[in-house]
């Protein structure tokens, strides 16, 4: 445990050193930061925009903006938190451009009643992933998460896919902690309900498709 903490501590110190060098114009140091986080930023951008071209643009624009505004980064939060905040804003902008209504925001469709009981409570197969081939499963998961409002899927991706804390997610999205928690709950429940269609247990059912 101690070693893990030390390692994490070292990484943060190392990261601050990289940011400091980059601030002084060291592109080599900035390139290290790009290599460290480009995959994460791409994943997050893809989840928000649903479009590979847009996601590629977001990765480029987010890193460029970060580089150009490094002076403004005070080091009160982690570099990654700051970077993702820039990337999420870029991704939402892309999404707005693609959609006819220009009102896409993280607050969309969140006025639903808190904690209503899911309609579908059928149990799933013991190993739902084995019901489908790898690429078919990937398509199901993509299609399902794409159906969620942007504010829900972004919170779900940051918390449950990228493994960030509630506090970090709140900071990245400019939301309060209760807002993150409530969106996460709705996202998890909606995904669960939508996936039930594919993963429902066949045994003991009523024979209806």
């Amino acid at each position, binding site marked *: 445990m101690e070693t893990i903490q030390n390692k994490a501590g070292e990484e943060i110190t190392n990261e601050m050193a990289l940011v400091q060098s980059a601030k002084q*114009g060291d*592109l080599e140091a*900035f*390139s290290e930061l*790009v*290599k460290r986080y*480009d*995959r994460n930023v*791409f*994943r997050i951008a*893809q*989840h928000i925009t649903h479009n590979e071209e847009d*996601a*590629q643009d977001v*990765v*480029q624009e987010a*890193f*460029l903006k970060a*580089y*150009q505004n490094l002076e403004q980064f005070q080091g009160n939060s982690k570099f990654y938190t700051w970077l993702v905040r820039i990337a999420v804003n870029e991704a939402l902008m892309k999404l707005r451009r693609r959609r006819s209504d220009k009102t896409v925001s993280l607050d969309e469709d969140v006025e639903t009643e*808190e*904690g*209503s*009981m*899911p309609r579908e*409570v*059928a*149990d*799933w197969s013991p190993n*739902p*992933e084995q019901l489908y081939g*790898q690429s078919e*499963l*990937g398509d199901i*998961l*993509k299609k399902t*998460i794409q159906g969620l409002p942007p504010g829900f899927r972004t919170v*779900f991706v940051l918390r*449950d*896919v990228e*493994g960030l804390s*509630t506090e970090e997610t709140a900071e990245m999205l400019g939301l309060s902690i209760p807002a993150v*928690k409530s969106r*996460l*709950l709705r996202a*998890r*429940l909606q*995904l*669960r309900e939508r*996936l*039930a269609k594919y*993963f429902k247990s066949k045994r003991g059912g009523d024979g209806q498709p």
Partner: protein
Amino acid sequence: MNCKDFLKELTDYLDGTISVTVREELDEHLHWCRDCHVVLNTTKKTIEIYRDNRLYELPEKLRNQLQDAILSKCKAAKQTRKSST
């Protein structure tokens, strides 16, 4: 505790950020409520499936191209800044 109360606490229950007292109440509810038991397990599974099957991995070739593009843009920005000062 009823099903509505259970759902309200579900996220904290799954994340392990809940007090011992509330956890005990939830466990008691789970003991007799089949629906909440199913919702808990399948929600847990939902999170695991998305965590284990990472979607949208960046292919290595594209990754290299993006890195090159980012660095050349940063370089250009750096030069513009230099020449303007």
